[in-house]
């Protein structure tokens, strides 16, 4: 049994490594993912353009404008003198936000009356507008609090002092890159498995394999283990890149990460084998794999929090293996996730793997008689 299984595994690895097309699949998409997600697909808002209409003639209005100009988030702050120009700047997308300081701003502030500043945000870019709104709100509030404290006009307003745990500077790559480890493991594990049976069918080697004295479990293991090994290799490379290139702190145990990864890869390979058993050609298999990959990635919490999804959609994410493994990769890297917590996320992976592997084995048997 072991000699036969070993022969199968060696063959499967050789086929993947010797075929230029599948070699490309092993190298191309992971590199593209790393570059795209780590550098381009960021949710941070930087390089923002603003327009300011300051109709206040006092010192406070000027000081506020200076503080806004002093923030590194804003690339340009254009002063205008006409409310129409504000509107035009937003209309033509020259600025995402227009700040309008009214004529009574300094007076109200000195008199201890509620002073107000108006932000006009470009709702077409809702996410960025929201974030800019937050930045500007913080600047205005801090300024008003400083001003009040300085003049002792108001006893003392409570101050909010945020401290970000695990990622003190909220560096975005600390959030995305550990997640990418899970994404790439899913991509490779799925595609390599999905191609394996379909390739044999397409090229006509499947019958030759099926007349060999192999039992179905041996063939299934022979088809599942190589993609898992390749998946682990990719995880290792990505872990190295995360630590060495992106300088993300590795605070938890790699052993736990790999342990959890085995179950995750088994679950994914089960799905891949299911797709492969259905497909007659490699092209169908690739299409099938992407049919699964896109929603699985969107519904995983990789880019958008699951809590933000509509309530009826959220239960669907509980069967998504990526959801659980993402928690593990991020947890192990950023917060030294303890053993019990890793187990809690790995148990669902175990059950998902049992289901996908069983269904894949059933379908494989059925389709091959």
């Amino acid at each position, binding site marked *: 049994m072991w000699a036969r299984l070993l022969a199968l595994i060696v063959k499967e690895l*050789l086929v993947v490594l010797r075929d230029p097309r599948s070699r490309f699949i092993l190298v191309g998409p992971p590199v593209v993912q790393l570059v795209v997600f780590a550098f381009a697909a960021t949710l941070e808002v930087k390089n923002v353009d603003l327009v300011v209409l300051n109709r206040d003639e006092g010192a406070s209005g000027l000081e506020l404008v200076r503080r806004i100009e002093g923030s590194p988030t804003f690339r340009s702050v254009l002063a205008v003198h006409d409310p129409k120009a504000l509107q035009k700047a937003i209309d033509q997308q020259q600025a995402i936000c227009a700040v309008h300081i009214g004529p009574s701003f300094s007076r109200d502030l000195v008199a201890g009356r509620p002073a107000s500043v108006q932000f006009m945000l470009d709702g077409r870019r809702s996410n960025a507008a929201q974030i800019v709104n937050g930045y500007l709100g913080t600047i205005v509030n801090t300024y008003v609090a400083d001003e009040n404290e300085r003049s002792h006009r108001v006893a003392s307003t409570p101050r909010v002092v945020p401290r970000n745990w695990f990622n003190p500077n909220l560096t975005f790559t600390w959030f995305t890159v550990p997640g990418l480890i899970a994404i790439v493991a899913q991509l490779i594990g799925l595609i390599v498995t999905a191609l394996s049976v379909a390739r044999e069918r397409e090229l006509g080697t499947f019958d030759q394999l099926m007349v060999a*004295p192999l039992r179905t479990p041996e063939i299934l293991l022979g088809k599942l283990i190589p993609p898992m090994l390749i998946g682990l290799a990719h995880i290792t490379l990505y872990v190295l890149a995360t630590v060495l290139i992106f300088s993300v702190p590795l605070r938890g145990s790699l052993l736990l990460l790999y342990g959890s990864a085995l179950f995750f890869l088994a679950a994914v390979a089960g799905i891949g084998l299911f797709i492969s058993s259905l497909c007659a050609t490699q092209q169908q298999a690739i299409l099938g794999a992407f049919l699964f990959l896109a929603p699985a990635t969107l519904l995983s919490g990789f880019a958008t929090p699951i809590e933000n999804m509509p309530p009826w959609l959220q239960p669907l994410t509980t069967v998504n293996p990526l959801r659980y493994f993402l928690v593990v990769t991020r947890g192990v890297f950023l917060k030294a996730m303890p053993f019990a917590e890793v187990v809690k996320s790995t148990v669902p992976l175990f059950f998902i793997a049992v289901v996908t592997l069983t269904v894949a084995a059933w379908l494989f048997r059925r389709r091959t008689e």
Partner: protein
Amino acid sequence: MSKTLVRLHAVTKRFGDAPPALDAVSGSVSAGAITGLVGPDGAGKTTLIRLMAGLVTAEHGSLDVLGFNPATQSASIHTAIGYMPQRFGLYEDLTVEENLTLYADLRALPTAQRADVFEELLAFTDLRSFKTRPAGKLSGGMKQKLGLACALIRKPRLLLLDEPTVGVDPISRRELWRMVRGLRDEGVGVVWSTAYLDEAEACDRVLLMNAGKLLFDGPPRELTRRTEGRVFRMVDIEGRRRPALAATLALPEVIDGVVQGRAIRVVARDAQHVPSVPREAGPHARLLPASPRFEDSFIDILGGGPGGESKLAEGVRAIPGRGENVIEARALTKRFGDFTAASEISFNVSRGEIFGLLGPNGAGKSTTFRMLCGLLKPTSGEGRVAGIDLRRDTAGARGRLGYMAQKFSLYGDLSARQNLRFFAGVYGLSGARKRQQIEQMIDVFALSAHLDMASRELPLGFKQRLALACAVMHEPEALFLDEPTSGVDPITRREFWCHINGLVEKGVAAVVTTHFMEEAEYCDRISLIYRGRSIALGSPDELKARAVTKDRPEPTMEDAFVALVEAYDRTQVAA
């Protein structure tokens, strides 16, 4: 001399770095004649046809098709020729009539003429009663006829047919020939490419090709005459005829020999020395002169057959118990939905026997074959290999059988050595025995020069050898060979059969599927599969004897096939 339609002069075509697909080929195609483009796969037939159709351009040499240069005037050629590629572009979901209309549109046939042309073509192809049937639901032979009809929508001056009879049953094949002869008599120039050497004899003129080179250009009879007076049939052989064949091939005066039913066909090196009869053939064996065939001369041009020694069989230990049943089919039946692909098929194959499943594509021979090697579960009935029930212990039975598919079915990306290692591994060989078996295969099949080449890049003959090596490395008791030699050149085919004969002599049982009538004669017994049933079972000579009529005292295997199928169809109509 009739008008010349195509002139080729020293045409060379190369794809990539491979040896040229066509190497300085010269020849011509005349109007009102069938020009056979004959040769095994990889000979360059398709390339040559595509050159004439203006679909690819030659690298060197000149080509003139109907007065046009295909490299620059392909559009003019396209309107004047009919071209039927190997897989004709029929739309499977369109009906026969819709397909014809589509091709009439594509070829801009005026609407006024359509009714007449369709009527004529449907009558010609005998497809009138299937006008409303989707093309996908036609049999292989009917599809080819419809393809031909579509290629004839505007009567071409030149008709190019690329292997029109592949996978077509002998009856449809005869009809296709009849149709094409009709066209020839109307003055159309026909190019008919084929790998079947018996078809070459029916052509008016032949371009015989092998590995890109033109071997012969002329009327087929002229080539056949090469071996006139040198061909014999050895009859009244006592005992087994495979050792007799091996002994005959070992004689220096013999260049070729094959089993032909109970007899052996022998080709002498020259007409002066009539071959002697080896001792192995028994005291009563004698040689009768026979009329030469195209294939005999082809082998002669190529320098003779490969001899009768099988190094493979020498290294294999003999399996005792001759006559024991190794493969048993008991009322094997397979239904797909309400379609019965194979119905109640029964036969036994004993040690040292070659059993043939003969029949057209789609008749059920592959279904039967696949049930017996465990690739398909029978709906009812049972199959046994080496006494093991395939339903109970599939893996156990599989370990005792070797399988070779029609298409090259090893891992193309792996090297020859990696393939050998893999198959040794999955058949449970390990350690010293694994190494020893692999070394033996490399030695027997002379693979050492190609060991590290990706096996998809191997020359055709070596692919064949490697596939056989992988199938027999574990010394199986039962061999399953699915169309093992379709498309290979006759030398490779003889080499292949030499190994099979050797193994069978050592006690292996073999099942072979074929639609190749010549090959059927190498078998000890044949089951004729037609419409999912075994309609006749017996030795090749017995089946031929059943087709003997007054005007046909010595029927060929193909005659026997046609006669038996027609007789079966009559009983079905009567019932």
